[in-house]
């Protein structure tokens, strides 16, 4: 586990800042004025510091319930203004984190959390129990500042998503929905669904007949989860640890981003032993406590949940569906043919620069030369009359993968040099490189180019990209210094890797039939 971040912790007790008397008659603007003045030092500190600041704030003080039975009491109004102002400050300052202490202390109750004797004897409002609760509430916030949330919740089915064993009692007799335990299991599903909607991937790791589990998903009226909520699954009689490893591969995520929930202590223990890097949850013994247990997990919680998180989750689901279908297909060509792939290339222009720069910076495997062009360099290349530069987008039946390839070729006479040829690893294994090469070849021939040079710079991680050259007719080239093509090449780029050359008239491009309605 990553060490928690270091931060300044400010425990803000509203009553220490603002006297409760004299508030009657103040309107919202007066309260905001007064509170803003009190918070000014905090604002200054956060702005001046490079360290995160955590403000644990409480507005609790003893009050009669009657005083706020008809309208908010003056104290309650002040408390709400404090909350609003703090969140307004935090919205503008990413280093500021807020901790609603009253919510955290409610777990023990305020009577146990506060201690007036400690206040009068030593100036501390809290009891020992309250202080322990305060520390326990701050810790996960510091953790999250330092480390990203977990990405995948792998769920057992029988005993978790529903009660009883579906393979034994059948879909109609499992405990799901209705009253009692069935309702608790349904709420476990709803809690998992909330996680999924916030960007956590859900996976199934179940020892079952797959058909039984999917029958529950498809036919049980009280299922809160649907097939679409599940990003990866292994429903068979294999050990769950092996299945988690496979799902990690499908999703291209590390096992340390997995969290495992199973009602069977034996399965949990086996998982802890086999894969200690997976976080195996220890749920309460009583299933009725599980929905609350899942809702209060810190492991997946984020400071902000953005639309990008949800989109990212959708991409992972597409990816896993692809890997799963691939396992099921006996013949690779018929599988790829069934993907309904549609590729499209667009000349690099201002709208594509940010994505192109990102691809150039982040692509490590399918990258011939690892030329890490900046946006400014890319803009200059795109504007040059002697350059062909385009982005390739790919869609298939599993979704729109967006711009996944960047291709740049520099031209001098009838010679061209492949400056950049890179593809996101998300779309490897689809022969998209063949389609891209064919688009490039067409454009080069239109410009009168016959000879295409490519350089392979071995980075230790990009062997997969090197293999594409020989697979498409490129051959290692050691042409003499006097060769006119070498003169032309020298003007295009310095070469320090392995040099390859192809005659565009003999370029081999297989697999193009896999792509629907290929357009440039």
């Amino acid at each position, binding site marked *: 586990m990553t060490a928690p971040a270091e931060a300044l912790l400010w425990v803000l007790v509203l009553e220490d800042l603002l006297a409760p008397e004299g508030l009657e008659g103040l309107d919202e603007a007066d309260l905001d004025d007064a509170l803003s003045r009190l918070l000014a030092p905090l604002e200054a500190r956060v702005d001046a510091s490079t360290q995160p600041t955590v403000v644990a704030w409480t507005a609790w003080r003893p009050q009669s319930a009657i005083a706020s039975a008809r309208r908010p009491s003056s104290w309650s109004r002040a408390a709400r203004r404090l909350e609003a102002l703090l969140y307004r400050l935090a919205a503008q300052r990413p280093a500021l984190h807020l901790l609603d202490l009253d919510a955290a202390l409610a777990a023990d109750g305020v009577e146990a959390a506060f201690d007036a*004797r*400690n206040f*009068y*004897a*030593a100036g*501390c409002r809290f*009891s*020992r129990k309250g202080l322990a609760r305060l520390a326990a509430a701050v810790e996960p916030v510091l953790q999250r500042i330092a480390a990203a949330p977990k990405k995948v919740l792998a769920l057992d089915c029988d005993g978790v998503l529903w009660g009883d064993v579906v393979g034994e009692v059948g879909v109609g007799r499992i405990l799901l929905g209705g009253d009692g335990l069935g309702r608790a299991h349904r709420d476990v599903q709803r809690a998992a669904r909330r996680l999924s909607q916030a960007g956590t991937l859900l996976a199934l790791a179940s020892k079952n007949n797959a058909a039984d589990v999917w029958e529950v998903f498809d036919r049980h009226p009280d299922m809160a989860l649907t097939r679409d909520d599940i990003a990866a699954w292994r429903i068979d009689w294999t050990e769950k640890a092996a299945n988690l490893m496979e799902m990690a591969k499908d999703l291209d995520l590390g096992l340390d981003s997995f969290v495992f929930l199973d009602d069977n202590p034996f399965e949990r223990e086996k998982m802890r032993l086999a894969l200690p890097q997976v976080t195996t949850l220890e749920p309460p013994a009583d299933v009725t406590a599980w929905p609350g247990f899942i809702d209060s997990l810190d492991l997946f919680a984020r400071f902000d949940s953005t639309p990008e998180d949800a989109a990212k989750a959708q991409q992972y689901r597409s990816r896993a569906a692809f890997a799963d279908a691939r396992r099921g297909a006996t013949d690779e060509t018929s599988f790829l043919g069934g993907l309904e792939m549609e590729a499209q290339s667009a000349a690099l222009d201002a709208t594509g620069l940010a994505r192109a720069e990102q691809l150039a910076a982040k692509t490590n495997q399918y990258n011939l030369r690892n030329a890490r062009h900046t946006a400014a360099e890319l803009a200059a290349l795109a504007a040059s009359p002697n350059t062909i530069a385009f982005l390739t987008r790919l869609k298939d039946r599993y979704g729109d993968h967006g711009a996944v390839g960047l291709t740049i070729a520099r031209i001098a006479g009838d010679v061209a040099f492949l400056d950049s040829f890179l593809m996101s690893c998300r779309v490897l294994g689809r022969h998209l490189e063949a389609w891209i090469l064919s688009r490039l070849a067409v454009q080069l021939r239109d410009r009168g180019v016959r000879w295409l040079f490519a350089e392979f710079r071995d980075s230790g991680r990009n062997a997969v990209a090197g293999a594409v050259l020989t697979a498409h007719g490129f051959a290692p080239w050691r042409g003499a210094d006097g060769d006119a093509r070498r003169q032309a090449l020298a003007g295009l780029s310095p070469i320090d890797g392995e040099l390859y050359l192809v005659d565009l008239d003999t370029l081999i491009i297989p697999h193009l039939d896999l792509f629907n309605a290929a357009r440039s």
Partner: protein
Amino acid sequence: MPPGPDLDSRLRALLQQQFPSATIPAATSLAVGGFPEWDSLGHYNYLLLVEETFDVRFSMEEMAELKGLDQIAAAVASRGREGP
């Protein structure tokens, strides 16, 4: 009932728990300031730890008056809570 030697050793163990890096002297009558780490804030936290461990609660006055292990032991024993 006067406090026994067992209570004294438990209070010393709690002192070590409250001040984990301190070297606690073997002196018979030990009190606040008896070693550098044992300052007034640390002492207050120590009294809270004693309260929690023996399930007792000291009054405001006691919090101010209980300075030495002998006094604290007597206050715990007077509540009949010295047992484990």
